[in-house]
């Protein structure tokens, strides 16, 4: 693949005084990443805007049949540009590109088209990708940056995981959320000092974080365990999934949302899998193997930290997920979330999160295959699975989505009661 320079480059000069406007996806993770970027001298503004106006802006600028994540992220950025808050000649935008075979790699081009429609095409758009699709002289993913970003992502995974497993049981409402906030602040301070990145430090902070959550006073409460999988943006973004985590929490659920690190390993591993399936250059293989091993270290540390506290459920390692997936789908199925999504459903069910919400943007192509397409087979193998696929798009209404989730929860509640009865009689 040729390395291309984008239409408007983000230059070294710009780095000095341009504000980089960033759409939001996973609130905890992105907050941390933002802080990493700031410690590298970038001025980053992470958007926290919500509301119907975002959707309307998106509808105006993006083909209405484009996936919801594109529509929302572009809508969020256009909304920011129109807010009057920024000097339009001193801003840049940012978009991720995975380089996969689904539409997501095209979001950045849709964003440029949107800018052009508005005569704002002088604004540079930075692509964040690991495939070398586009490069900018003023924005480089250097090795130190990459290492820190990965650490930040894993911190995000850990905080999200522990918060979700503590919040439903906390004695003092709001304590887990407060703990997340204080950790984000603390980590940010450490990042600024160039600390908390090394493997050794990461390991010790992981431990400290896990310990701090284990010390939140809790009581036993009867909850339903619900897992959330799906297209990556809709899965994490409260803007896209109508605040799904919060809704489930209010319905008396404990939620498990698989982390981002698994997805990162998946993307690197795909390169290796391609070579295994179709043949290819072993040199490329070496680099990917190194990267994969590096990513996996973070994962291992996270799992170990969580496992020290038996009250928490640790996620399964990537290798196990891949084994699970192979029981129902080929490891060559790699576009979008690919087989990983199917594997996450199975892993959740295995680790007692039998109730799963599978989120996807309406008409998401990979999800026809790995989400809805695989539910039947997953149920066959794991009969206790209770999965509900939910579509998200600008016109899907919250009431319909919540209604369907409530149905899933009603079935879950009944199963639980039956299981308890059986236990008592046995």
């Amino acid at each position: 693949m040729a390395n291309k320079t984008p239409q408007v480059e983000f230059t070294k000069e710009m780095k000095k005084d341009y504000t980089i406007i960033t759409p939001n996806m996973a609130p905890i993770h992105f907050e941390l990443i933002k802080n990493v970027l700031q410690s590298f001298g970038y001025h980053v503004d992470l958007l926290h805007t919500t509301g119907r106006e975002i959707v309307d802006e998106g509808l105006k600028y993006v083909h209405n049949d484009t996936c919801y994540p594109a529509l929302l992220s572009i809508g969020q950025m256009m909304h920011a540009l129109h807010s009057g808050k920024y000097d339009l000649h001193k801003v840049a935008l940012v978009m991720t590109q995975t380089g996969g075979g689904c539409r997501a790699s095209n979001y950045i081009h849709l964003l440029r088209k949107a800018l052009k429609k508005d005569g704002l095409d002088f604004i540079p758009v930075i692509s964040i990708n690991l495939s070398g699709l586009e490069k900018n002289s003023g924005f480089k993913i250097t090795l130190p940056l990459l290492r820190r970003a990965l650490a930040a992502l894993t911190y995000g995974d850990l905080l999200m995981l522990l918060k979700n497993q503590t919040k439903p049981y906390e004695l003092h409402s709001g304590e887990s959320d407060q703990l997340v906030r204080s950790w984000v602040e603390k980590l940010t301070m450490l990042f600024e000092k160039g600390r908390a990145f090394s493997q050794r430090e990461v390991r010790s902070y992981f431990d400290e974080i896990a310990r701090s959550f284990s010390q939140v006073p809790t009581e036993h409460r009867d909850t339903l365990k619900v897992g959330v999988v799906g297209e990556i943006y809709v899965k994490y973004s409260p803007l896209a999934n109508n605040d799904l985590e919060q809704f489930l929490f209010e319905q008396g659920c404990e939620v498990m949302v698989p982390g981002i690190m698994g997805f990162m390993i998946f993307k690197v591993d795909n390169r290796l899998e391609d070579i295994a399936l179709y043949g290819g250059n072993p040199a490329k293989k070496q680099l990917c193997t190194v990267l994969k091993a590096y990513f996996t270290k973070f994962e291992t540390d996270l799992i170990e930290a969580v496992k020290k506290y038996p009250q928490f459920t640790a996620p399964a390692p990537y290798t196990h997920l891949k084994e699970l997936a192979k029981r129902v789908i080929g490891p060559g199925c790699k576009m979008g979330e690919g087989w990983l999504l199917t594997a996450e459903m199975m892993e959740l069910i295995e680790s007692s999160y039998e109730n799963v919400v599978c989120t996807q943007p309406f008409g998401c192509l990979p999800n026809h295959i790995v989400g809805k397409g695989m539910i039947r087979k997953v149920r066959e193998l794991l009969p206790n699975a209770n999965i509900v696929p939910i579509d998200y798009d600008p016109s899907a209404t919250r009431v319909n989505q919540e209604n369907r989730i409530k149905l899933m929860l009603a079935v879950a509640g009944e199963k639980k009661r039956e299981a308890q009865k059986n236990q008592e009689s046995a």
Partner: protein
Amino acid sequence: MRIGLDVGSTTLKCVVYDNDGQLVFHAYERHYSQIAEKAASMLQNACAQRPGLHRAALCISGSAGMGLAEDLEIPFVQEVYATRTAVKRWVPSADVVIELGGEDAKILFLSGAMEVRMNGSCAGGTGAFIDQMATLLNITPDELGRIAEESERTYSIASRCGVFAKSDIQALLNQGAQKNDIAASILTAVVNQTVAGLAQGREISGSVVYLGGPLTFLPQLRNAFDRILGVKGLCPENSLYFVAMGAAFSETAEEFSLEEVIEKISHYSSHGRYQSSEALFADQDEYREFQERHQRDQVRTDAPLLPGNIAYVGVDAGSTTVKAVAINENEEIVFSEYLPNSGNPVPLVRDFLSRLYEKFPGIHIRSSASTGYGEEIIKSAFSLDLGVVETIAHFTAAKKFDPQVDFIIDIGGQDIKCFKVKNGAIDNIFLNEACSSGCGSFLQTFAGALGFEMSEFSKLGLFAENPVDLGSRCTVFMNSAVKQAQKDGASLENISAGLSISVVKNALYKVIRVTDAKALGQHIVVQGGTFLNDAVLRAFEKEIGHNATRPSISGLMGAYGAALYSKERAHWEESSIAAARDLAFFSHQVSSVTCSGCENHCRLTVNTFAGGKKYIAGNRCDKPLAKKSSAVSYNLYDYKKQLLDSYENCTGKRGRIGIPMGLNLFELYPFWYTFFTSLGFGVFHSPPSDRKLYFEGQHTIPSDTVCYPAKLMHGHIEALLKEKPDAIFYPCMSYNLDESLGDNHYNCPVVAYYPEVLDANIAALSNTKFIYSYVGLHRPKDFPKKMHGILSEYFPGISLPEIKKAASLAYEEYYAHMKRIRDKGKEYLALAKKENLPVIILSGRPYHLDPEINHGIDRLICQCGAMVISEDAVSDQLQKFPTKVLNQWTYHARLYAAAKYVAQSGDPRINLVQLVSFGCGVDAITGDEVRSILEEKDRIYTQIKIDEITNLGAVRIRLRSLFAALNLGAEAV
């Protein structure tokens, strides 16, 4: 005592049980969104009838009840779950429950692994759908059920969503199909939708229970389910109340004092939490100014005939109305009618003409023309002189009101048409894609559901203070948006205004897809019946930011334009139109036959008029028509099909391999055929797709929003399984062959991995060798070794050298096949140049070759007198060039190349039409890019969205307008 309250999307149900578990009260009522009032009064009634009733365990259920329950802190139980509780209690033997409601369709599988399925964001196949269809037929839903009993045949009607079905039905009506046959077809469509959308691979068998309004009230619908599922279902007593009954016995029910609850509910009111937009009119004065302004755009409608009594007649047989006018030499209207079309437009036009002749006995009609959906049938029934495509008719009329008109938008019963005008010619046409049509009739149906006439309903919104923001999506999905608004307590006034605003936003942002509504044009003419509603017009003006012209005859513009058009072209003295004496003997008979001209077996509707004149509809080609198409057709789609047919099914010593003829195999068949036959296998492919094949596979489709070409694969696999092959071969392919036109050479996710879905959902496949391994044809050097590994799992003993040889033959054959297509393309293009023929590069994917997918659009283009070339026949003539999107799919790179080819050709006779399958997410990106490549060189972009729909009427308009805009061969149709 126990009380269950079921607040559905359209109705309210309540049951009361005494302490012995006896049902002592039940009530059922439409709530017309006045949920709180009706619920309170229903409970009051219950108390009045049971004087001892003061306290009871209460629980609410139903899709519209959640908000009420939450806010009043009354226990709520999800309605499917409530149904299940009730079925367990009263019909314990049930295996499967099918429940259809106002907007919901549900299936519960009770025996075995318990599962519950609800319809997704699509409202097709529900009570609302049946209501909508009945409205279209101008009968009540009950009547629909009754007349369905007398049907003789059923037609295939798209059931995926109401809008598609509507266009199918409208076409059938216009073609003269019998109402009872249509009614039966509608019920069949509901069943198919339920099976396809909800069963998703799980068989419905055993003891089936039918619940909910439609299944309770329409025994014929139950029969349709029985017939198609091959079961004898049961509709139990109180089948309407099961949700309420389940709620009453829900474990979550809590005891309340009824007096208090009723008090609480009756004081429950809106808290205005919904998103709202600005009011349409601030006050009466603003409205008055608006009315006065629009009264200026007048044309006389009661003019006299001028000396000589010369008149011109125009008829617009639209989807839901028939409009007809007669004008005099001054182009003033002397007589006009605007009639609701409840099915057959023919008698309406006959009566119009009779009344015209009666009023003006001495009239001398010089010329006449028809337009609209019913253009052809009216033209042949009454021997009109001309037919004109609707877009041209409307343009002709609009010029009369604003000669400088640069933009016309027409929102009719179920179409949105708009077009830009540049230098006095139509420059760009936007017709609604199948998914967002039905705007006018949607308003109408919605008004009806709430108990209003459309105009009355629309007026309600004029002074609404906080119109509901319902967004700008396909109108079918608005049902649930309205439901949400109701839940949030929006008043009828605000919902009405919101719907008017939505119709407008839909047109602007969904159909025309404007970025800046303010830049549409300076001289905008609006027309069509929907704009007769002041609320809609006002919403439009607010959205575009300036005033528009609404001709006083806004609803008659098509007919008026047709009359003007006939006047413009009248180089004769007397019209051939049926005279008064002809009308006296006018007769119209309809019969149906199945055409046996080709494998399509089209269901033809034959209309016979007085004197033996015939009009045939329902045909996909010219074969059954008396007239032979004049020119030899040059159709590369046909040629490609012939090429594929030349690979004859065969047997071989190593066994027989079946290949499904769908998706990418439309292109790779020559490769795999050669590969396997040279290894000594016999190879055969599944039969051509048709509806029957589709229906046979539809019960295993897990995602109802995937594209039609993918859905068809299920039928192809079923067909292959019947042949009991030794193996079925259909590989997964992330990557396609690299044609060096883009940055990568992926397949789209659906093409790449659909075999995985087939394996996971077609249970019968587990008894056959299904080879769906991941294969990389893009690496010819690695391919033999990898393929050797794959095949040896299934057929041990094939050597690597054998595979190497077979692979090299296969690659050779594949490239030879592609070269044949490209050579033929060049030959045709050269011929076109020589003979001065228009050319359409009909661009899609290899599988758009399938007539079941393209619905014969290739032939339709040939009938318009143009040559059809496929995108892959020209894409090789270009080098890779920069695009504004990431160019990473092989098939899609060809689209960009084909667009570039057209743009660079500089030849106005060569144009591009893009076929897009509904649900194709990738084409949301390619469509925009192809458009921008063409428009850079001022070329017209035409996109045709296709799905299961079999109605070609809208496509025909599209194509004829294109040819008219290009000034090419427009009269050929």
